[in-house]
């Protein structure tokens, strides 16, 4: 099909409509979407940073509180980007208003991009709020703003895609909590949020390298503090590879109508 002159502006309007709808959704229910992560991470800063952290001593060359800040911010980004897309897209399937999009001329990649951007918006909103909370506990000087922002955005994109795939396959509201509980939480906790992988024995260090969250946490830690367990190029390469793979898979699910068309 050839695309006329008005096609790209039309695509932009469609994309902006989906993103706007998603943004209004999570800001309208901010008590359920933004506040819980802020409270949880405040408790982490208070307990692990202030109370226990003082007794742990430096980690990776940083005070323990400073060491865990990047991981906790990223944990909030991951959880919120994922939750936003999985709950929003599954709700649209459950109540059948996904059909509003399916009957429209919006191409699949715009639908995917819109939902992913919505997830990124929530992830970054909560991540920024958590960062502000962290500044109440410690002084944060950003080592590389470009790396920091890039890692945050790429991580939010990656987990928004994960949430989208989960929503496509989910057949009940129970199904949308399985992956966060049994996959996301272990990956995040074992992704070097609270410790440096240098502390692990050689075998477990090698196992940790298979965890994509490790690359994101370390990339983000480099952006904030200039310290990382992983070479930065590797971190970006791995995140990008996951984004490309999951995007391709999501589009193929949409093209085949898996979970949304009979």
């Amino acid at each position, binding site marked *: 099909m050839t695309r006329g002159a008005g096609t790209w502006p039309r695509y932009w309007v469609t994309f902006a*409509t*989906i993103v706007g709808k998603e943004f209004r959704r999570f800001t309208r229910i901010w008590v359920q979407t933004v506040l819980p992560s802020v409270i949880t991470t405040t408790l982490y800063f208070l307990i692990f940073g202030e109370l226990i952290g003082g007794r742990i001593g430096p980690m990776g060359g940083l005070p323990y509180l400073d060491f865990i800040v990047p991981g906790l911010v990223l944990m909030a980004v991951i959880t919120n980007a994922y939750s936003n897309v999985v709950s929003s897209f599954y709700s649209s399937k459950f109540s059948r208003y996904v059909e*509003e999009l399916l*009957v429209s*001329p919006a191409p699949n990649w715009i639908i995917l991009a819109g939902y992913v951007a919505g997830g990124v918006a929530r992830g970054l909103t909560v991540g920024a709020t958590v960062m502000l909370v962290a500044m109440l506990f410690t002084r944060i000087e950003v080592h590389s703003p470009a790396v920091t922002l890039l890692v945050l955005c790429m991580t939010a994109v990656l987990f928004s895609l994960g949430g989208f795939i989960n929503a496509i396959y989910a057949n009940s509201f129970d199904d949308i909590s399985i992956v966060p509980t049994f996959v996301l939480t272990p990956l995040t906790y074992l992704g070097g949020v609270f410790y440096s992988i240098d502390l692990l024995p050689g075998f477990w260090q090698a196992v940790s390298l298979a965890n994509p969250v490790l690359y994101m946490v370390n990339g983000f830690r480099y952006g904030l503090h200039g310290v990382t367990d992983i070479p930065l190029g590797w971190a970006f390469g791995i995140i990008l590879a996951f984004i490309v793979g999951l995007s391709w898979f999501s589009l193929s699910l949409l093209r085949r109508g898996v979970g949304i068309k009979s």
Partner: protein
Amino acid sequence: MPPALAVTALVKTYRGGLQALKGVDLRVDAGDFFALLGPNGAGKSTLIGIIASLVTKTSGQVRVFGHDLDLDPEAVKSCIGLVPQEFNFNLFLPAGEVVVNQAGYYGIPRREARVRAERYLRQLDLWERRDTEMRRLSGGMKRRLMIARALVHEPRLLILDEPTAGVDIEIRRSMWAFLKELNAQGTTIILTTHYLEEAESLCRNIAIINDGEIAERTSIAALLGRLHTETFVLNLKGRVTELPQLGGFVLNHVDDCTLEVEMNREHTINGLFDALSRNGIEVLSLRNKQNRLERLFLDMVDQNQADARGAP
């Protein structure tokens, strides 16, 4: 001008083996008001679902105003507005936002979307409810909202799947008037309904689908012309205890003030009234015992089922 809809050899087999459509061919001309009728499970919703891109076809071709669904789905979708049978919107959004968002999905900028949303919400008596969450609207309002949502991108082909189900008579009549006006302005309309009176009063042409196949595709007038007999119910001014003998008319006694008259197409209503007057019977009012289209429809479905049972 290409037809509004041209469906060729359309087949849909669901996972599990159920063949919902068995090679449907259907053509709807531009500007038509077209009825698609069939018993439950006949394949109507599957056919509509495929045309609207909600169901994946197994094989066959769908063209809308000359655009092929396989080759140019965006052009096909831009031409179609769908009012589905089931409510399908976010119940927590205000009514106005549902319509404006839908326009956005079609690429209509928000400012223009708001203008159009106001136009259609006013036309369908929903403007005062624009800030009301969908879940707080009545069933009739939700049905009208779905029509406004389907029209906001100004489609050339509007498909309505049971649009007046569960709607009270007054609102149904106002929806009919709205749809007639829309059709008069050039929008092609395809309607499925269980109210056959609705199809008879609105539509010019009709297809009857049964068991995944088009059993009939003709004009409403031609279809009604096949009725050999009609039965009328007469409300009488006085009491009638004994039935008179009227040549050519079969009279049945319902009660002292009500008669049923069965007459074939060779006779006229004028002839009936003349005969009744000669026997001193005065008629207050008259109505069809059964909707004419309903009767034909039931006869046709019965015939098809009999044919299917008799098939080797």
